[in-house]
């Protein structure tokens, strides 16, 4: 067995390698965003043409806006519903825990296209018969996404919740704090990491979702993955690469900003951020 230092070096090497693996396609996307040729797989020299084409197209811009809106709302709703349910599942004594757990997991087991078709039929019928239900459109896309996202939140938050141990909460009660303030001051902060992780995952999956969205959408609601998919299917224009590059730059800037912020606040800030995401 290699020494501790060597183990660390090996692991670090692997870690960096995997990160490079994660970013290789992104690098390709960025480079080809500057591709002068229309056909994506052939390189023909540098050009900024596609960036301006991307901005001129309101189809892409509105698709992006729609996806962002749905993803953000989805993360919010899924996190609220899912966290509440995770708390109940983790520590309630109710008999309904097991069947309800099974139901939550069932949402992850259904193939996406299946729930997509079934949902579409359901939404059409529901809208016709119960005025309360929205017609097909961004709202039905959102409703569909929440089903699956909240299951993910439940999974993550509950794993953390049950593993967290209740000693601190016991102590809080011992010291006389009531249930609400215990929750607010002890449980919630410790749970926050998992909640944030769940929300991030919910946002990400919603933003990138294709199949469910296509079937629960209406004629004039096109999300970003739908726009990309249609372009990819019949010949990617590098405009799509250009937009992805810009998105990536925005996110990278955000991360750089966070990094700067962390180093300013020192190691404490870093630890709490790390906790937050772990």
């Amino acid at each position, binding site marked *: 067995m290699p020494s501790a230092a060597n183990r660390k070096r090996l692991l670090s090497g692997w870690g960096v390698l995997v990160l490079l693996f994660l970013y290789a396609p992104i690098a390709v996307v960025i480079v080809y965003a500057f591709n002068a040729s229309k056909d994506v797989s052939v390189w023909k020299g540098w050009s900024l043409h596609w960036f301006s084409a991307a901005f001129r197209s309101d189809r892409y811009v509105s698709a992006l806006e729609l996806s962002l809106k749905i993803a953000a709302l989805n993360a919010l709703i899924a996190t609220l519903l899912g966290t509440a349910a995770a708390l109940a599942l983790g520590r309630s004594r109710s008999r309904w825990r097991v069947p309800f757990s099974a139901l939550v997991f069932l949402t992850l087991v259904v193939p996406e296209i299946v729930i997509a078709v079934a949902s579409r039929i359901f939404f059409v*019928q529901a809208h*016709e*018969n119960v005025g309360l239900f929205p017609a*097909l459109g961004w709202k039905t896309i959102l409703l569909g996404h929440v089903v699956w996202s909240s299951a993910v939140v439940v999974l993550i938050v509950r794993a953390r919740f049950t593993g967290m141990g209740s000693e601190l909460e016991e102590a809080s009660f011992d010291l006389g704090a009531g249930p609400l303030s215990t929750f607010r001051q002890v449980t919630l902060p410790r749970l926050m990491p998992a909640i944030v992780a769940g929300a991030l995952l919910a946002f990400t999956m919603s933003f990138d979702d294709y199949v469910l969205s296509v*079937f629960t959408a209406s004629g004039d609601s*096109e999300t970003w993955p739908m726009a990309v998919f249609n*372009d990819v299917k*019949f*010949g990617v224009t590098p405009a799509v690469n250009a937009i992805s590059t810009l998105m990536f730059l925005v996110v990278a800037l955000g991360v750089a900003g966070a990094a700067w912020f962390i180093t300013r606040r020192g190691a404490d800030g870093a630890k709490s951020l790390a906790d937050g995401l772990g």
Partner: protein
Amino acid sequence: MSPKSDGELRLLAPAGLKPKIDRLARLSQNAAWRERGVKVSRREAIGLGGLALLIAGCGGSTGGSSGGGGSAKAASARLEGKPLESNLLIYNFSEYLDPKTRASFHKQNPGTTVKETYYSSSDEMEAKIKAGGGDYDIIVPGQNSIAPLGEAGLLYQLDHSLIPNMSNLQPQWKDLDYDKGNKFTVVKNWGYVGFYYRNDLIDATPKTYMEFLEGLPAAAKKGRTNMLEGTTTIIGDTMIALGLDPDSENQADYDKAVKFLQPLAGSIKTLDASTNRADTVSGKIIYGQAWSGDLAQIAAARKDITCVAPDGACERFADNWAIPAQAPHPVAAHAWINYLLDPEIALQEMKYSGYGTANAKTWDLPGAKKYANNPLVNLEQDKINGYKFILSPTPKVLNLRQQAYEKFRATR
């Protein structure tokens, strides 16, 4: 989709009548929508429809889509003279309509905004229309979608008085088998399935589709071969090459096709119908099957590729303009179809997509000359007549073909 038991309308009828009652409800809904712009619930529709039946004094609707004829005529009388609505939503393949055409239509009809959204396969569009909902005004179904959509009452019956330019169509592209009398559709463009090969790498010179298939093993040794992913292009076209009816309901015919294809499976390197044109032009594919529009573009891009419109039997198809039954803006939709039948516009579209137009007047235009001389775009009528439509007239055909396709793919 069974009637909701909401306590307000219960129908006791023999089970066999259920499909008829459903159709009745749907027709009534469509009629109410067309005549009054009113969305009627299924419950109300059954009531209205039932009343109409009682008044008409006969039992059961006549078979097929003629049952809706009465209401359709009344509807057309209603559409004439009506102004165009302010919006038009087109649901189409991407890159299948010149954006300039949308812009010029809008210029001619400034009150109407034209939007387009895309689907990536005809099947996806069909699935969406069948599952209901959606607010498209124009769709672009292939000829094999007309039976499933039309018979289910999902297509709007065209008011020909609003489409005077229909007379511009070549006679051989009017009144086709899959839509007699142009009840639902007008041909947008037609095409066929051909093939191509790199003449510097491949020694053979296949002229028929069968020769193309038989040449696959030899070609696979020299580079990447490709065929178009999909049940019709793989199973359907093979059946045509074998002399079988691609719309057969006989399991044995499909088994023959699968048996023929299985030994060739290893020689078909990829099944790709989306990036195949780009990959061919960039030199990645050296031997492949292609739609005629792509063939024209490949031939223009590379001189070392021979593109072939096959001799003998192969598949032809027609993509059509159609209006969904529940389209919210039918007047604009009709105006759109009429506009696209204008000879100059049809020429513009042919330039954009590379597919042959069905517009007789377009071929007379000077700009069409180079397309007229292109053997890949303008074929002799005899040759076209030898090509077959794949119609998929019943669910059984679709299932048999799908299963055969899956058998083929599973053995790769």
